[in-house]
């Protein structure tokens, strides 16, 4: 994985750039000390590290606007950053770039129950929003596992999801309004407290754009009333295939659970050894199905899910009878990553989506790859929406294992695309999957996406080197070849 070659001309102007930034954000808001910059050298994808040229921590929208405008004028690249929990290297700094930390934007600006929405600054954590409205029985639905740390700004940039997303949607389905700043300093408002923003759905494009289109400075999200009850069923199967069949049958029966998660044998064993959730150890696949809603509905559906599971060959079934028990079921799943961390010096978490019906094939092919490269793999995944998280176990101290793990990971993602799925279900492309984009998209697809980028950031200064495998200049992308009278389309019916 190669990052764009740093521009030595820009690095040579570092002092001048720092001065310009200090004029906008005074005092400690501009960081140049190498030790202090270390805090930003990587995000959740720790395999890649790079010190930024300088970091700036603005605290007002005007400062963000001035910083971007100044960087544009000076031809300097900018990488926005929230909490730095991205697992695809989205916030990886650039040696010739400014790191724009949004950590000071921590205020909850408005809680509006009558319109069921909350307006916050982008540095507020995902869980912080739910906590702010919990006393009224409300919550913010998208719940990435990192919700205690990750920011809503980062969630917008990554279109983050979590266990609830099958039923309640991703970030993009729960955002009503945004304020953002373009690279030229323009401050824009999209949407608001009303539904359907009007005009082109620019909010839809910005959500999930991985910090390449603009810097988000304010967010309005929908909040929902907490369901009256939630109960979970733990289901064990003699094979992953049967587990997969059960998931399909639940959905075919018209049931969309609040969460539906699956783990394979290695993941079950690691999780059980870690948190003692009470998981059965003699099954090949474990399914947790959570039903939420009014008590009458949950009771009705629990019975139906149990019946479906029996029919699909479940050899183990346990329904939670108390809130403690339900949380215990989840404790194992939620701790699956650290649990796997205990049985292997290092692990690499992949993230791809497949059509659910391809699950048996994908698991089998993954096992073959694992046998071939000698690295173990544990699987936890969002079964309801086919989002896989294979965890590849390796030891970074053993020469060649990191490279082997990366190669294995790439092969898994290519397999996801091959069976009709996509490279990433929730972690984003970032630098990690950038060079695989050509496996999912052809040149015309990628060029059209990059033209969109040009509409927002014509000089390509915002977070370059992420998402797109090849950097094109906007002028080149904008060229249009038209030949007069080239085609008369004789075959097309006319009236």
């Amino acid at each position: 994985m190669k990052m764009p070659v740093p521009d030595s001309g820009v690095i040579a102007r570092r002092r001048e750039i720092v001065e310009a930034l200090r004029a906008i954000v005074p005092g400690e808001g501009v960081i140049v000390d190498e030790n202090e910059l270390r805090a930003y050298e990587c995000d959740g994808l720790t395999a890649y590290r790079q010190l930024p040229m300088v970091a700036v921590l603005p605290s007002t929208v005007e400062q963000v606007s001035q910083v971007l405008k100044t960087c544009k004028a000076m031809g300097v690249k900018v990488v926005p950053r929230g909490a730095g929990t991205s697992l695809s290297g989205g916030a990886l700094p650039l040696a010739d770039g400014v790191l724009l930390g949004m950590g000071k934007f921590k205020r909850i600006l408005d809680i509006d129950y009558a319109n069921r929405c909350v307006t916050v600054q982008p540095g507020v954590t995902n869980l912080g929003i739910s906590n702010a409205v919990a006393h009224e029985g409300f919550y913010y639905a998208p719940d990435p596992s990192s919700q205690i740390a990750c920011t809503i700004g980062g969630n917008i940039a990554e279109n983050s999801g979590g266990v609830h997303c099958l039923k309640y949607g991703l970030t993009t389905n729960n955002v009503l309004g945004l304020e953002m700043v373009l690279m030229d300093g323009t401050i824009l408002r999209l949407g608001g407290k009303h539904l359907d923003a009007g005009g082109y759905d620019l909010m839809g494009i910005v959500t999930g754009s991985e910090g390449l289109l603009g810097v988000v400075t304010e967010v309005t999200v929908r909040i929902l009333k907490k369901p009256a009850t939630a109960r979970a069923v733990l289901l064990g199967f003699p094979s992953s295939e049967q587990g997969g069949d059960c998931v399909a049958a639940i959905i075919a029966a018209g049931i969309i659970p609040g969460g539906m998660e699956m783990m394979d044998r290695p993941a079950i064993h690691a999780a059980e050894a870690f948190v003692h959730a009470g998981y059965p150890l003699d099954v090949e696949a474990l399914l947790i199905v959570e039903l939420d809603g009014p008590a009458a509905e949950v009771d009705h559906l629990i019975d139906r899910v149990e019946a479906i599971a029996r029919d699909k060959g479940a050899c183990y079934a346990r329904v939670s009878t108390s809130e403690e028990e339900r949380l215990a079921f989840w404790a194992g799943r939620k701790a699956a990553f650290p649990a796997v961390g205990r049985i292997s010096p290092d692990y690499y978490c992949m993230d791809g989506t497949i059509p659910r019906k391809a699950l048996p094939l994908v698991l089998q092919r993954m096992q073959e790859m694992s046998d071939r490269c000698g690295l173990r793999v544990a699987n936890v995944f969002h079964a309801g929406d086919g989002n896989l998280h294979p965890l590849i176990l390796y030891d970074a101290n053993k020469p060649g294992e990191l490279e082997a793990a990366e190669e294995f990971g790439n092969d898994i993602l290519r397999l996801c695309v091959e069976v009709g799925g996509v490279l990433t279900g929730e972690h984003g492309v970032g630098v990690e999957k950038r060079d695989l984009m050509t496996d999912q998209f052809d040149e015309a697809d990628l060029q059209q996406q990059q033209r969109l980028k040009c509409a927002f950031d014509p000089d390509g200064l915002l977070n370059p080197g992420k998402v797109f495998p090849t950097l094109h200049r906007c002028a080149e992308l904008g060229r249009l070849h038209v030949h007069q009278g080239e085609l008369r389309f004789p075959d097309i019916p006319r009236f």
Partner: protein
Amino acid sequence: MTITTLKPETAAQVTDAVRWALSAGEPLEILGSGSRRGLGRPVQAGHALDLSALSGVIAYEPEELVLTALAGTRMDLIRSMLAERGQHLAFEPPEGGTLGGLVASGLAGPRRISAGSARDHTLGIAGVSGRAEAYKGGGKVVKNVTGYDVPKLMAGSFGTLTALTEITVKVLPAPEDSATLLLFGLDDRAAVAVLDRALRSPYEVSGAAHLPAVIAARSGVSAVAGAGGAATLVRLEGFGPSVAARVTMLREELRADAVLGRDESLAVWREVRDGAGLGEGTDAQLWKLSVPPSAGPSTVEAIRRTLDVEAFYDWGGGLVWLTARPDSGTAIRAALSAGGHATLVRAPEPVRAATDVFQPLPEPLMALSRRVKESFDPKGILNPGRMYAGL
């Protein structure tokens, strides 16, 4: 003013047609079934690109919750196919038209408050840009964050960015049962307050509308028309036992006057969805306003100060349908002080040509929208002027 209609039968022919239009400098008006050609700004094009022959469902897998079809496929066909497997498009689109027309119009029904709109369910697209380039965006699975979410941008772009040839949508189980709580005789403000209470409850309300007396009286559902005054509607849907339990609890909590069972509930929400009750066939203009839900009544009050209008509320007060005498745009838009926007949905052609059909955008946003349009269609070949003059 259409001179020719081109009717491609394959995606490759769509590319040929756009390539010709581009080289000849002849703009195209894109048609699905053309059923609603009388809506929006009249397109300034001498040629029509009729996509209705691009028809057929390519893949439908109920367990995967996705359906892929050619863009010209008629919605009736898709609807009945989904219904056979107990599924539907959860955003409750209006009947008729084609899948492409539906997505391009970015529509949604009363279930917008819980299920979202067309954008939320459009997973993948293939199409031909105004550069005569065939490309695709998004994917064919329900969870995907690979690259920009181009399918969302297509929803509500009214064919000004791309001639869509293929679309993948998310489908969901259709509710087993439906019931509607009715409250009678409330004024607009009191009604929206009740809708707010219902939407703050944990009972998963999937429709929240208020019909003032004149509108309620025109309903085809006797319990609504016979109320003798305004009718406030709260819908609950889902599995039978769940609907029954929620109806009991919410009826008590809201002190509702009556409950509509399945058939009447379905009928009344069809009326709400279609904006029925607002005088079709008159020369009045039909407007659709999207505002913060609590600001619905005050917005209508402000409009009433200068105009004689009939209006009703959906989306808990956030969607106002209203009819007004001609030349109402300025007064309506001036009343949107709480935020939101107004779209002119029905009016005679000269009015649509002279009025801003869509809410005018603030200049920085308009400039960005123009650049977005140019990135897909630099020569303005596709539906020029449909959304905004000069775009």
